[in-house]
């Protein structure tokens, strides 16, 4: 019999019941809740007179539509200016209070974007099944969790039963061998992968990212990669456990200690695909060929190397794709054939569950240090992913580097990644953004998003247009 993949092992370890019709009951170890996709689930529980199955597996925090402005945040939940946002955040507080769920409140240490605060608190740990009503839950796969986004009906189902009714996915191996060049980051790797396999390439699959490039990558970099598995269509993206994984969790707030830690570690070390494991599909990419990436269009697969040009409609033969390119060029206000570095930038956003961890901020600060934001750029938002990231960055003086460069240092939250709060683009504005989606209107109605790495975003802020970060001399921090 063939060996098991990492996904097979995690699936088997959490299988409560396999049914004849192909569906299964899968046990959930950690459920993370936020204000946007949970209110209807709590209401459903109340209407049916049901209680959470296990309170202690749930953890909650507000992130999607809270303000990132220092004064507005300091004024507290009751002072959130937008009434619907205020009701939503208060509803989360009330639901957590009445059901007894541990919530890290808006201004409490520990609060942050769900996929930043979960790992840094050790609330999500290797080998766990982790779900959240948010498609970027795959982030937690970076340390061998079986983690994925769910809808609100499933949020209610997990609250009530601790299980998910689901079907097993297929296995996809994405192997990136070799070494990355200078100035090429985790974000560039995942954007290049999405460009290669397409935004539906991973539909129906759980992806395992393997190869030298991921072995060399930090846990934070692996989180950036797994975070965007969904942009390749896959709900799940994973990397197996190694020494870096173990070291990352040692001493985290909710990580086990003492003898329990040793037992956990010996189990975590088994979280690898067997050498003879069989994958349904394999994609191999050479790491040394990857250069910094930039998205030009309105789907994450519409991505080109920074050295490249915006595609021309006439070069595409497939009619559906042609139509997509035509739509995208029109929406983005771009000319096919022009170099991607010719795109001017109106605003810059450094943040989101993809790129708001301390390493991301260090990378951006290394470019910003001793430089000034171009006069044509209206705003540069730097939004740390959590209260802990914010505190760490401030202790390293990164906030001062950003402020001196002419950037705004904000409070933690999802911010301009999806523009549910006041941080948004105006119609027609181009934004160099470290977030994960460049859909039409995603960052504000009519806004035009260019996805790239934190270093590339900082470089765009300085240059006033998309630019190759490798052409900038790094500051003293590099």
């Amino acid at each position: 019999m063939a060996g098991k993949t990492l996904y097979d092992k995690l699936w088997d370890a959490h299988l409560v019941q396999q049914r004849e019709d192909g569906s299964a009951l899968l046990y959930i170890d950690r459920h993370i809740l936020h204000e946007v996709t949970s209110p209807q689930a709590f209401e459903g529980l109340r209407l049916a007179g049901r209680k959470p199955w296990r309170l202690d597996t749930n953890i909650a925090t507000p992130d999607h539509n809270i303000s990132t402005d220092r004064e507005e945040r300091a004024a507290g939940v009751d002072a959130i200016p937008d009434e619907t946002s205020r009701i939503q955040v208060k509803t989360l507080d009330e639901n957590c209070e009445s059901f007894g769920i541990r919530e890290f409140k808006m201004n409490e240490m520990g609060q942050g974007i769900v996929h930043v605060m979960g790992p840094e608190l050790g609330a999500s740990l290797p080998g766990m099944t982790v779900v959240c009503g948010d498609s970027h839950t795959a982030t937690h796969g970076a340390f061998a969790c079986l983690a994925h986004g769910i809808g609100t009906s499933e949020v209610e189902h997990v609250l009530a039963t601790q299980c998910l009714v689901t079907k097993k996915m297929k296995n996809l191996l994405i192997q990136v061998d070799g070494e990355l060049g200078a100035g090429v980051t985790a974000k560039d790797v995942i954007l290049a992968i999405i460009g290669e396999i397409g935004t539906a390439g991973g539909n129906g699959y759980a992806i395992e990212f393997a190869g030298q490039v991921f072995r060399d990558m930090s846990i934070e970099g692996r989180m950036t990669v797994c975070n965007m598995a969904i942009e390749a269509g896959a709900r799940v993206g994973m990397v197996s456990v190694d020494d870096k994984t173990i070291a990352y969790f040692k001493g985290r707030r909710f990580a086990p200690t003492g003898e329990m830690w040793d037992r956990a570690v010996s189990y975590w070390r088994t979280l690898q695909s067997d050498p003879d494991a069989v994958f349904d599909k394999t994609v191999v990419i050479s790491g040394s060929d990857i250069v910094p990436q930039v998205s030009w269009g309105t789907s994450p697969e519409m991505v080109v190397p920074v050295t490249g040009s915006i595609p021309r409609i006439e070069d595409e033969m497939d009619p559906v794709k042609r139509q997509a390119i035509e739509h995208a060029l029109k929406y983005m206000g771009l000319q096919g054939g022009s170099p991607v570095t010719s795109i001017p930038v109106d605003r810059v956003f450094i943040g989101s569950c993809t790129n708001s961890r301390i390493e991301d901020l260090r990378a951006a600060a290394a470019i910003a240090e001793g430089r000034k934001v171009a006069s044509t750029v209206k705003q540069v938002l730097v939004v740390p992913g959590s209260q802990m990231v914010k505190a760490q960055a401030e202790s390293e003086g990164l906030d001062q580097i950003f402020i001196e460069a002419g950037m705004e240092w904000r409070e933690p939250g999802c911010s301009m990644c999806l523009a549910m709060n006041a941080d948004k683009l105006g119609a027609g504005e181009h934004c160099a953004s470290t977030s994960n989606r460049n859909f039409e209107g995603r960052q504000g109605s009519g806004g035009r998003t260019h996805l790239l790495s934190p270093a590339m975003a900082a470089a765009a802020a300085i240059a006033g247009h998309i630019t190759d970060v490798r052409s900038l001399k790094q500051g003293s921090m590099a």
Partner: protein
Amino acid sequence: MKVFSVHKGLVAPMDRANVDTDMIIPKQFLKSIKRTGFGPNLFDELRYLDEGQPGQSGRERPLNPDFPLNWSRYQGASILLARENFGCGSSREHAPWALDDYGFRVIIAPSYADIFFNNCFKNGLLPIVLNENIVSNLFCEAEQNPGYQLTVDLPRQRLIKPDGEELSFEIDPFYKQCLLEGLDEIGLTLKQADTIRAYEAQQEIRCPWLFHAIK
């Protein structure tokens, strides 16, 4: 959950690939704490010429005359024809809630994003997968014939065209059962409470650290 068995309805086209859930229901409407009322804001940015805000009445807003759902021939449509990878992006269940609230009962496309596909079944909405060429033909027929209707027979897994031609489609038996009977999934799972508890007891021996409370 709503029961789905046989449905006959008007077909409307949404002729673009990779329609994402931000497009189906933009983020400003996600601030609602209800499951209903999203219909007027379905495809908001494509449907209206101004920027929509929660709580605003759709009737006074300027409609985009180029958007098919605004055309009189597609008023009352309940079957949406779509292209590949429909519903990609965010996991927001507000997307199927908006489609349902607008009046759609069926979507027909060559493929769907996984989370959206799953969310449809939780809301009595049937996402049918058909081969790309067949979907392209349906687009042509719906566009060429005003008032084009299809009958969807879920028990027999058939799509019946106006001329009587039948197309068969595949559906997962579990999902089919849920739609046909309008099953309460939570109620069903809770019938397995003893099995879940037995799993927990075993798992607590294997991985005791998973049973340490978050405090």
